């Protein structure tokens, strides 16, 4: 009972917030609606027992991607009114694409249910009783350890590459020299002057 109730709650909020994401006029509001949709989608994932994907949705999509979207929306000077201007003109094309997508989904589901595609053989079968975070962790650190570390190296190369290709030593920027700041005493920076009246100030 409570399960069904939770499902309809999450599902309704996902649908409403997704609709508001594309209809809201303010792009910052759109991103906030998107975040709400992500949270509720994560709730749906928990309901079907895919808690790992739920965590991923929250950590990756809400934590990183949505925040990135927010930054991009706020930093870039995009005229959304202009972007929206062609809406009616492109509507037929959009509808055709949508119909094509729906048709593809139906075909895929149909093909799946006839059972012709042999996806039954799994190279790394998992124990159904294991929670899926544990199951993924178990595979990731045993069988797929080598590839996992390899993926880490790919990220390292991406980082090194980005720095090599863009970093330059700027001569015109002021850098902090902590030891010089600490070593500085008040007598180096200030002086007491008995200023005679009627004469100019020496700077």
């Amino acid at each position: 009972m409570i399960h069904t109730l939770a499902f309809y709650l999450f599902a309704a909020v996902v649908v409403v917030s997704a609709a508001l994401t594309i209809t809201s006029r303010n792009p910052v509001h759109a991103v906030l609606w998107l975040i709400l949709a992500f949270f509720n989608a994560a709730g749906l994932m928990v309901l079907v027992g895919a808690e790992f994907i739920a965590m991923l949705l929250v950590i990756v999509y809400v934590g990183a991607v949505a925040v990135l979207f927010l930054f991009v929306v706020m930093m870039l000077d995009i005229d959304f009114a202009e972007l929206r201007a062609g809406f009616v003109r492109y509507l037929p094309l959009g509808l055709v694409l949508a119909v094509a997508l729906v048709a593809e989904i139906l075909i895929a589901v149909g093909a799946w249910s006839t059972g012709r595609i042999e996806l039954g053989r799994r190279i790394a079968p998992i124990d159904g009783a294991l929670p899926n975070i544990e199951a993924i962790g178990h595979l990731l650190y045993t069988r797929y350890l080598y590839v996992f570390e390899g993926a880490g190296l790919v990220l390292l190369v991406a980082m090194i590459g980005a720095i090599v290709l863009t970093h330059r030593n700027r001569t015109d920027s002021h850098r902090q020299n902590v030891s010089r700041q600490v070593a500085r005493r008040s007598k180096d920076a200030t002086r007491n002057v008995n200023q005679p009246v009627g004469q100019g100030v020496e700077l």
Partner: protein
Amino acid sequence: MSYASQLATTLPELVLAAGAIVLMLVAAWGGQRSTRAVSIASVFVLVGAGIALIGPASSGATAFGGMYRADAFAAYAKVLIYAASAIAIMVAPRFFAQTAGDNLKPEYPILILLSCTGMGMMVSAGDMLLLYVGLELQSLAAYVLASFMRRDTRSAEAGLKYFVLGALASGILLYGISLVYGFSGTTLFVDIAQAYAGDLGGERSLGLLFGLVFVFAGIAFKMSAVPFHMWTPDVYEGAPTPVTAFFASAPKVAAIGLGMRVAIEAMGPATADWRQIVIFASLASIVLGAVAAIGQTNIKRLLAYSSINNVGFALVGLAAGTPEGVASVLFYMAIYIVMTLGSFLVVLQMRDVAGRPIETIAGFSGLSRSHPGLAAALAIMMFSLAGIPPLLGFNAKLEVFNAAVQADLFVLAVVAVIGSVPGAYYYLRIVKTLYFDAPAEGVAVRTDRFEGGLLAATAVFISPVGWFLLAPLGAWTMTAARSLF
């Protein structure tokens, strides 16, 4: 299999990865000053990885549930890869020191080390997942290396072009892999082979065939075989010359090694299907590589077409699909990288009066009069690339044709022999430029004792003296090839 023994099996990559990370820390603290020390240390890391190949890493063992294969084939390919990479690291400091604008940064040897780690994964892959991760690691480092000279717009263009087209090729490859996985239910090569053999019950599905085509298209891009060669001349021309020498040697060996492993181990039962693709790519590469090179005026572009042409010849051996064929390809690659590195070593010596690198073929005119040794070395490389007898380039071609004939591919062998004739034309044209043209103006060749020594070593290897090495090399390639079947 215990955890420690799995690590021992993958030791060469562990040495490379750990070495690269430690040197990265040294570079982070040492900055620009540490470039020389990091370069020298990187060469030693490569030597260390080569030594790590002795023992479990070449014993034929597998690790991580068959994902990683440490057989003689992988060990042979890794020796070639490490040697070529070490040379690419060693020739870089002098090139960058003499070229105004960009300095050599300590990241250069480190990126080559990481690229080598990826290439090691590629040739040792027993699983589509490892294949892809290794390929990406190698390619990503290569994209950065291609645009290493940031002030040079051609270098930046080369990097960008390589990146965009490389990403497209990765997409094609990944699409093929996902089809193969979808229709076989596994990513392990041995199990994929079962699916191709039709052991899963019922007839083989069409999806597997589509997957095969896409996988071969992706791999053909990485080995720059026609019709996926378009990026090669531009990238080779724009990248700094030591990087071009690297691209033409180590990643080529890795890509061909990977292609052979996928073709034989994963798709061996479908040999009749992939053979047509390999034969087409092979003949197209031979013909286009030879014909398109004729009009080139830039030596780096010419060597790029030469590499396309050579990949075509190597694929003749793969088309045979027999242990002899695979052995002939391995033999071909060993001689090919020596010839290519030798040619690039000569190109590295060429400077004009202002110290800028000379890349036009006209700049080589009459080199025999001012620098007879250098001219003779380049002439030996060109004769050998053309496949003229006493030099080893002839033996390499002979081996692949022999393997094709033994596999009853007479037509392929004959067409490939005919296709090598226009190739000989442009190689010999360079020899003519070297010996019979009037000396070019404004050439100030700057030779170096160390690079001269390397060049002499490659020339001696290619010369008839190298015949002494033929027997051991032949035996080694045969052992390596047998480990695939």
